[in-house]
């Protein structure tokens, strides 16, 4: 597939990717038209626009996440999501 953009980021929150970070991630993902998916190194791809699915990934502190997006704004989507995770979910 041509339009697939991929990025990686590490979870820096000591308590992992749970409610508040997951809400922030899903909210941000929903602002893009591109389909956005996230996975841990050994897990399945989940829809980044679903807080519920993100929670269930149980991504803990230090887990590397891979983000992939496909669509018109895929590049921006991956860039922004990586930024959010890298900044430990602090809004800029």
């Amino acid at each position: 597939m041509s339009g697939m953009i991929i990025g990686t980021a590490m979870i820096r929150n000591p308590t992992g990717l749970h409610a508040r970070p997951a809400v922030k991630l899903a909210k941000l993902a929903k602002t893009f038209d591109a389909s956005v998916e996230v996975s841990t190194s050994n897990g399945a791809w989940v829809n980044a626009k679903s807080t519920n699915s993100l929670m269930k990934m149980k991504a803990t502190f230090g887990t590397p996440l891979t983000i992939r997006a496909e669509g018109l704004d895929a590049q921006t989507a991956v860039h922004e999501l990586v930024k959010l995770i890298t900044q430990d979910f602090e809004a800029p």
Partner: protein
Amino acid sequence: MMQVRGISASPGIARGRVCFLHTAPPVGERPTCSVDEEMARLTEAIGLAHQELSFLADGLADIEAGIIEFQMELLEDESVTGAVRRAIENGQSALQAWQAVMAREMEDYRSEANAYISARADDLHDLGERVAHHLVADPKWVKKEPLRGERLVLADILSPSRFLELDLAQVSGIATAGGSPTSHVSILAKARGIPMIVGCGEGLAKVADGAEAFLDAEIGLFCYAVDAVERKALLAKIAARAISDGLAESRRAGSAATMTGERVLILANLDGHDATGWPDLRDFDGIGLFRTEFLLTAGTFPGEDEQYRIYRSLLEWAGDRPVTVRLLDAGGDKPIAGMTAAGEHNPFLGLRGFRLFALHPEIFRGQMRALARAATAGRLKVMVPMITIPAEMQAFRAEMVAIVESLTQDGTTCRLPELGMMVEVPSAALMAGEFETDFYSIGTNDLIQFTLAVARDEHRLAHLARGDNAAVLGLIKQVADAGGLRNREVSVCGDMASDPQMVPHLLRAGIRSLSITPAAVAAVKHSIRLWSEN
């Protein structure tokens, strides 16, 4: 008197009129309609629930908003609503489908080993109920009577969103038939300072709506149908508590801890030496900043003996609580005629704080001698303002040690107090680990102005001079980390520490000691109690 026993979930004693909150599971399902109509019911119920939650989310504190936001996200979550829609297409009613999906999701969360995730099952239950009641158009649920006066809210079980929906100013206490003291609601009630007992069982159902009742969450007791004598005794107990513990502002007193139970030291910033204007010590773990500029009268600093008496009485007043006295901090925005340099082009970057030692060693030595003598009267800590490089700290320490030695030789009782530094200059923050210091105290006002290059008195640039700027917080975190590594206390004594909006940022940066303006104590403690790492 009739009594119902429960488990204390949030301390306090309260009186009020009983107000029942309907929280029973939805009953009276309407007959199942066509797939299209069931779909429409679902959409409508989700829409109503979303509306209610977004109305609620406005104006909530951090952790409270977090709980509501998570529920709102679930309402829009394809992995939840998609499953419900598929079940409706397969012939289930909207209610059946919704409840089945929510039950399954809840089970998923509950079986999770990670406590952060499993606790979220509470939120799913909360949301599940809200939508279910809308699906059956439960009139009891929808009806919201405004609460008036002091109300004791009774319910079978109370969810976080139902709790937050209450007009909490009118709620004097809460008692529930079910529930647990560790639930989200109990935590919220504690943070809000509302007495609450849980696990009261069937007994509550016998109380008449509107009847006067008493709640003693200290011992987990709910009483109603009290006679005149009992009533008088209960009211006296409430009054006694109000006076002795200051229940009117009960959350003011007592130690502050985060949602996850981490202690945060709350110290007071003090001006002047008139004890009548000082705060109630019970609200504080100590004095984090005693400003000595205020001892100046008509441009002259009191002599050594007078200062000694002032510091001594300060330490005696504080008892076993630590007191941090700051060396004279003149200059910058605090020019003192005859002491600070005249005609400085940029006084904020000039001879100020400990830099003035070079100009007036006799004033500083007098103050340091007074402090060393007073140090025997309590837990004295002395800090130096405007430290830029490690050599300044070494010089200060050497001076202080020499003073103690000379006093000792003269046979004067004295002691070397703990010696700490203010961190106001970015160089001090960046190199915090390099300084020979017993503790750090971050002065955020100067740190902000130096990091962001905005003068403190330039109000047109206030939008730039923000404590929640990432660079400022990064520097604060560096100091917190350096202190943590070397086991030195790091506190913040600038205005940022007294701002409840900024407190979460400081806690996140690793700060666990705040020195604040006394008037802010209730708000700052509230902010701490609502905070958790995530």
